[in-house]
């Protein structure tokens, strides 16, 4: 219960920071005893700071709130550092396996003419996803007259050379193809500009 209240407080606190307004009603401990100390919890639901000099119901000034947010962030980062040493080899094997599965899924769609209607698949023009340049997105695509993301050009190639229907942006096939394209550029192209991509790195 206490924790929940503290979490609420933190969400309010974050609200102040985002809006840049010092809304006095925002920080508003809801405990029943006036003398209780204020506890603020970060968005991870775990990291907490206990404020000795602020009571539960007290509204903090903007300066104070900023100071508290800073403390919270520092505590959070320290904990994270500690945690990152807690991951085991087994964990990272799982992550690798998951990533590999998604890339393989992307490879499959990239080589599948069923995304289009005329028999053509992406790999026919982009062997090993060459000339996809994932490292250059987002960019202004002159012919589209707007900023394009990688997925916009994927859809463009589905609709045009492959005469197919565009995929929804959150279509798992789209996500998987993006993963494959980035992976392929980073791993199958030895040129320096491909090396700025680092898929899978924590």
């Amino acid at each position, binding site marked *: 219960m206490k924790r929940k209240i503290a979490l609420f407080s933190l969400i309010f606190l974050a609200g102040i920071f985002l809006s840049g307004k010092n809304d006095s009603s925002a920080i508003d401990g809801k405990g029943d005893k006036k003398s209780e100390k204020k506890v603020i919890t970060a968005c991870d639901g775990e990291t907490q700071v206990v404020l000795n000099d602020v009571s539960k119901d007290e509204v903090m000034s903007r300066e104070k709130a900023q100071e508290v947010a800073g403390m919270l962030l520092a505590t959070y980062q320290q904990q994270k550092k500690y945690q990152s040493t807690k991951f085991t080899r087994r964990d990272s094997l799982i992550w690798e396996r998951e990533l590999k599965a998604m890339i393989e899924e992307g490879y499959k769609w990239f080589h599948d003419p069923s995304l289009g209607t005329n*028999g*053509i698949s992406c790999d026919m*023009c982009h*062997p090993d996803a060459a000339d996809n340049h994932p490292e250059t997105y987002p960019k202004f695509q002159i012919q589209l007259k707007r900023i394009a993301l990688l997925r916009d050009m994927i859809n*463009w190639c589905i609709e045009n050379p492959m005469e197919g229907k565009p995929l929804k942006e959150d279509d798992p096939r789209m996500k998987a193809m993006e993963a494959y394209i980035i992976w392929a550029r980073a791993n199958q192209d030895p040129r320096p500009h491909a090396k700025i991509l680092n898929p899978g790195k924590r």
Partner: protein
Amino acid sequence: MPKMPSERKEEQYLKEREEFFKALPKLNRRQFLKVAMASAAVALAKNQFPPHSFQLVEAVEAKQGGGTEVKFRFAYISDTHLYERKLNERFVRAALKAVQDVNALDPQPDFVLFGGDLAQLGQPEELKLGKEILSEVKAKIYMMVGEHDWYLDLGEKWIELFGQQYYSFDHKGVHFIVLNSVIVDDYWTEAKMTPMERMKFMAQLDNPKGRPFTVGKGYGDVGRKQFEWLKQDLAKVSKDTPVVVFSHSPLYKYYKPWNFWTDDAEEVQALLRPFKNVTVIHGHTHQPVFNKIGNINFYGMLSTAWPWPYAPTGLPKLTIKMNRADPFDQFDGTGDGTVEILANGKANKIYNLWSREPMKVTARYLESGGREEVPPLPVDPSF
């Protein structure tokens, strides 16, 4: 809606381009230089734009003497990758465009070479459609096989429709050889693949399990017989006779992961070494690519269907990349071309890029180590 600045620029560029082309006909050499410079300036100004370089290429061979006058020309069409018409009209349109081009050449070329990969999946309907389209070509046509024509039925239908898979002929004092350079080891018997599985395995350029092409090795005895034939064929030719070899794969080693490669290239090159003038014209790579190894000049052909990216490594040093292809234009980076055979036995190559200025690569360029007669450099090369 007000126009974006880039849109205005593009319009202005297109206008300049149009005026430039209007001014082209009937130029004498001085005027040519003037316009050529203007075109270079426009091309430079164009730097902010993607694709399309239209720097002027001097179409008329200026230097006479030294045997560099053109003795005869032939044209080529290559890598049409046809599906059945009802599935894919796009590649049919492109193949027809090439036929139109070749038929419009004036004077007509002495003959036309088809560079292989007529079909996409080697199916009888695809090959027959290809034959039908090519039958419109007015000049005599010589056919060569590509792996896409071959691996559904190991050449059965192709041979039935087009005849021998390797042969030679003489034309105006030049010895021409047409090879089947797409022979690979048997990967299908043990894996119990169906013919279509075998075909699709081969059709995937970036297949990590793909097998390298050879001329004289591979399954059965096709390659070994061809290599013996080649030796005997060349034995009958005098060393001063210019030799032009047509192969589908490049007869050298460019990039193995995509089979831009002939595994026994050195052995074939060794057979060609004693000859004074040797030119290899190959398909498969779908891009302007050229090379020189010892006495042999190599030129790759364009595809009518799509351009291939330049491989990340292994590109011959003498190759000048074309500008990046514009995906918004089906015909950009594709095309057909002609080859000029010179009186001195050398060959120049003209890449007839459909949405751009033609690109001429001369034997002089290759033989000067890339110092003379340098073709226009790209403003937006692939990366």
